[in-house]
């Protein structure tokens, strides 16, 4: 808040004067005061070619007095009358100037929009009924507002390639393309895989992938998001669901520590699509394909739907009630000394879940508490080396200096018989932490919660269906130290509970206190107990999160974006 105040410039928009920082693009100035300027090619994160011409507006400047005549006297506010220029200008690439006037509702502006719309639709196939973009197509949207409602185009339309697989995840319909070049610019400027381009020229201009090449970039699906029309569509989402039938939930990606902000599209308990949501401090406007497509397991047959308890006689799991499962667990745990119990939580848990896990550990006086570390190669864009979304939460709340570093000790303890019980929450430690079934068989008691059936569950005494990320709410702290909200998008299947509920009930079964009915209550307690969270309310976090702690983690894509912004190439 202590930033140096930028030079402010007075600009008149639709008759009213406003002030904006010097260098603001006309389109952004309008947006800031709630005046929408329709556009296709402009995108604040990409260079501005000014090619679609949809953002043409009427513009005026202070009159230039003829040589020798008196300058025009400003009025009491310091404004001079605007002399309107007979030629429209694009609002996207032009910056504001002192005493500039912009009219977005004038006859000239409306004529320009009508004209551009008619021309954009001239060679467009108008196949909206079978187009996947329907419902979120800018052509449709602006047609309603600025179109003529009838076509005067009587000619044969230009024929272009249709239904071209340009990559494993993206499909191209060239007849729908309006040549805005957003996808080309994205692949050139941001994804560093410049394989898209225009071939031919004039009305025959065709968006093309170079023959023999594929759009293999792990960021390719962003081009489908960017495409303002139905030219580029996602193979994964194509024809799955009309957009207007789906419920949108703003939440965060949990596939790595970056915590990309996302919007989840779901209907009746099924997630159909994830798209990135703009957050300039986290993921800009983008996300990796691998992360957004990691959703299909959520509705898989392998989901755990009921608590399971191992039958002493048969040795098989049988369905139990939550109360039964909890009582079984409490009975087993209460037989042991705390030093004989280990708790493995997960850095995929929310802060709230981690807090209550910490309570559980205290209740049990557990000798060992850790989470499973998850490391990978950073991709130099948005994917962090840390593939857990909330390692920082685990550090702060569980007091772990180096999350995952004592997992081997726990394993040794089990092998040597020192650790007799293990409570493993939301992790699959056989597949993800190097445990073996034989090792775990040595335990007197083993409880695990997880969304999916897996090898670890097979050897557990109590198996609990834990909600996945999309089925719960809470907060997480990303790699850069930003506190962000995870929001529930769908209900979990069957008897699934959120991990914090599972732990709450277990603590209760162990004889501990409870009285917690919502994750937000846990957050309030967190703010009281963990110094870094002090004074923060759940409501404050908002859709975009807020900085909580300083870390060394940098997001390379954002650093490059900042450079391009500093060079004036993009708005940012």
């Amino acid at each position: 808040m202590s930033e140096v105040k930028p030079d402010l410039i007075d600009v008149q928009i639709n008759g009213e004067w406003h002030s904006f920082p010097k260098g603001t693009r006309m389109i952004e100035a309008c947006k800031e005061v709630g005046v929408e300027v329709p556009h296709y090619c402009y995108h604040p994160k990409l260079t501005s070619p000014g090619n679609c011409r949809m953002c043409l507006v009427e513009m005026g400047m202070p009159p230039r007095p003829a040589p020798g005549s008196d300058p025009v006297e400003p009025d009491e506010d310091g404004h001079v009358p605007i002399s309107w220029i007979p030629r429209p200008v694009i609002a996207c690439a032009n910056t504001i100037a002192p005493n500039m006037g912009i009219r977005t509702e004038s006859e000239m502006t409306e004529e320009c929009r009508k004209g551009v719309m008619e021309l954009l639709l001239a060679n467009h196939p108008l196949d909206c009924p079978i187009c996947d973009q329907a419902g979120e197509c800018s052509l449709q949207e602006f047609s309603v507002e600025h179109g003529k409602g009838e076509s005067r185009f009587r000619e044969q339309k230009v024929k272009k390639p249709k239904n071209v697989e340009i990559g494993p995840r993206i499909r191209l319909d060239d007849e729908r393309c309006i040549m805005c070049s957003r996808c080309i610019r994205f692949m050139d400027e941001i994804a560093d895989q410049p394989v898209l381009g225009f071939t031919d020229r004039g009305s025959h201009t065709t968006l093309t992938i170079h023959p023999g090449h594929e759009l293999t970039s792990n960021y390719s699906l962003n081009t489908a998001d960017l495409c303002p029309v139905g030219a580029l569509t996602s193979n994964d989402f194509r024809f799955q669901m009309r957009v207007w039938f789906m419920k949108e939930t703003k939440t965060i990606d949990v596939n790595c520590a970056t915590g990309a902000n996302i919007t989840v599209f779901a209907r009746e308990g099924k997630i159909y699509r994830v798209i990135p949501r703009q957050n300039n401090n986290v993921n800009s406007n983008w996300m990796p394909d691998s992360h957004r497509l990691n959703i299909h397991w959520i509705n898989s047959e392998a989901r755990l739907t009921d608590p399971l308890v191992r039958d002493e006689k048969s040795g098989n799991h049988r369905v139990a009630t939550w109360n039964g499962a909890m009582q079984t667990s409490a009975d087993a745990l209460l037989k042991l000394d705390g030093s004989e119990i280990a708790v493995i939580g997960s850095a995929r848990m929310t802060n709230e879940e981690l807090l209550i896990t910490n309570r559980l550990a205290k209740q049990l006086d557990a000798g060992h508490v850790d989470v499973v570390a998850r490391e990978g190669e950073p991709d130099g864009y948005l994917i962090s080396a840390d593939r857990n979304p909330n390692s920082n939460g685990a550090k702060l709340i569980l007091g772990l200096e180096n999350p995952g570093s004592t997992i081997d000790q726990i394993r040794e303890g089990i092998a040597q018989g020192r650790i007799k019980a293990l409570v493993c929450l939301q992790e699959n430690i056989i597949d993800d932490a190097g445990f073996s079934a034989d090792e775990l068989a040595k335990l007197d008691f083993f409880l695990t919660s997880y969304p999916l059936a897996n090898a670890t569950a097979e050897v557990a005494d109590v198996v609990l269906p834990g909600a996945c990320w999309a089925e719960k709410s809470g907060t997480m702290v990303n790699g850069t130290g930003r506190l962000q909200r995870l929001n529930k998008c769908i209900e979990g299947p069957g008897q699934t509970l959120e991990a914090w509920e599972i732990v709450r009930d277990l603590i209760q079964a162990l004889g501990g206190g409870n009285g917690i009915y919502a994750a937000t209550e846990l957050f309030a307690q967190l703010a009281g107990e963990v110094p870094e969270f002090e004074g923060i309310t759940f409501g404050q976090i908002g859709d975009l999160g807020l900085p909580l702690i300083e870390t060394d983690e940098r997001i390379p894509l954002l650093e490059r974006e900042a450079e391009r912004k500093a060079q004036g190439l993009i708005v940012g």
Partner: protein
Amino acid sequence: MSFEVPAEVETKVDQRITHYPVSKRSAVLPVIHELQHHFGFISEEAVEWIAVKLELEPIKVLEVVTFYPGIRQSAPGKFHIRVCRTLSCAMAGSAELMDALCETANIDRSGTDHHHPIAVSPDGKFSIEFAECLASCGTGPVCLVNDDFHEAVPNAAELLAKYD
């Protein structure tokens, strides 16, 4: 993989590239011209070769190759004729000249369209297309045959007889 650029052509290419000390990419058109001069047209292999030579993504070369009508993507005849189509030449009879040239050289232009503007004679000797204004409007109808410029072309047969 049989695409090979002869050493003497590559020497010329390298020479052309030196004309652009700031950016090798600037040499795209000159390099295309050298290859087209030698091969008659720019094949997909030629596009890849140029991309490697100039350290560009191939699409950046293809974007250029497909933009310009002066760059051919299929083999022309031994003698490639470009007849000016634009107004002054049209007023001077360039459409009639085109018809006469096609008849004389036995070229069928009925299969040409925007994407395939060039028609070749069955014997491969002549190919023909319309070109836009060749900037000799005072002496129409004009045409280019390979690099030779012909103005006020009086007679198709007379013109074609010069090429054997």
